[in-house]
């Protein structure tokens, strides 16, 4: 009897549509594009600010266009998705054990959310809101 193993091929372009968990993974990965684009907008804003008051005001006006608002809402949604999905897997990557007791995952996740709130509050305080 001769062996003739059959090798199945996997689509390189549509594999991620096969299961909901792959789609969720791709959504997390795609979030980096929107977050990267948002970072570019912030850098452009800083450049405009360095060019003087008129340039800065015109930059702020351009942010109020419908396209800009939709972009910012999308970027915010993906940034939140990215952040929360990573926070939720931190106990897997950074488990903490004290003696024979493992720190519950909820505590590690909670600490990340608490850190998030603290840093946000600090930034809001620094910018005077």
């Amino acid at each position, binding site marked *: *009897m*001769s*062996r*003739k*193993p*059959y*090798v*199945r091929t*996997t689509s*390189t372009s549509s*594999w*991620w549509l*096969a*299961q909901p*968990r*792959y789609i969720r*993974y791709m959504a997390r*990965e795609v979030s980096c594009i929107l977050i990267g684009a948002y970072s570019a907008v912030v850098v452009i804003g800083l450049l405009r600010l360095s060019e003087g008051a008129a340039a800065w005001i015109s930059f702020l006006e351009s942010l109020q266009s419908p396209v800009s608002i939709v972009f910012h809402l999308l970027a915010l949604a993906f940034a939140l998705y990215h952040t929360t999905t990573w926070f939720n*897997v931190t106990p*897997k*990557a*950074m*488990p903490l*054990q004290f*003696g*024979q007791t*493992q720190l519950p995952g909820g505590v590690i996740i909670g600490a990340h959310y608490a850190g998030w709130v603290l840093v946000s509050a600090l930034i809001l305080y620094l910018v005077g809101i």
Partner: protein
Amino acid sequence: MNERQVELEILRYDPETDQQPSFQIYLVPCQEDWVVLDAINYVKDNLDRTLSYRWSCHMAVCGSCGMMINGEPALSCKTFLRDLPETIRIEPLANFPIERDLVVVMDDFMNKLGKVKPYLLPREKKAVENGSYLQSPAQLKKFRQYTLCINCTLCYAACPQYAHNEGFVGPAALALAHRYNLDSRDVGRRARQDVVASNEGIWECSFVGACSDVCPEHVDPAGAIQQTKIASTIDYFKDLILPRRD
């Protein structure tokens, strides 16, 4: 007990006669407490003796009966028919070549498993008469979860990285390397790093997490790989600062 009939669509492949696999349909009368493996055994015993598949313990310990059940990698002995629709599609584990019917070729996994040295590498080998290596319950707890792997390879069938990168060492082998690296009796971490911390080791993983979702023993290989990434990164910076340590 109520009897129900399910339709099994089983992917068949005979290397001696077939150019490619094709589905064959079997109607199976089943009991409420049956798992998918019971239905496949019914086919083998009553409908078609040519069907080939692997199984042994029927209790989620041996890791032999993994297959794709409605597109999801699962142990057929642990998947109840009552949780599935009337039509059930059964295929060999994804990402492995098909040897025959539901039997896959596991050579690639076995080779990779060997490469990570999944065994104890103690500082000094002790003769049996000199007693056992001592370990506290707290030291055992650090890695016990990763000892539960039954080498069923469901994690390889779920992993899109393994599907697209043949060289990827893969979830189970990396989780077992982590298991020995965490063991207080073991000093083999450096010896495993060449394979584990290579581009085709932990760094090929992009944390899809599917391996941990499908693991029947809750080993969490995805977690093991992320922990190894952190440890390897710390190693890298330690080596930069103190090139001649150990």
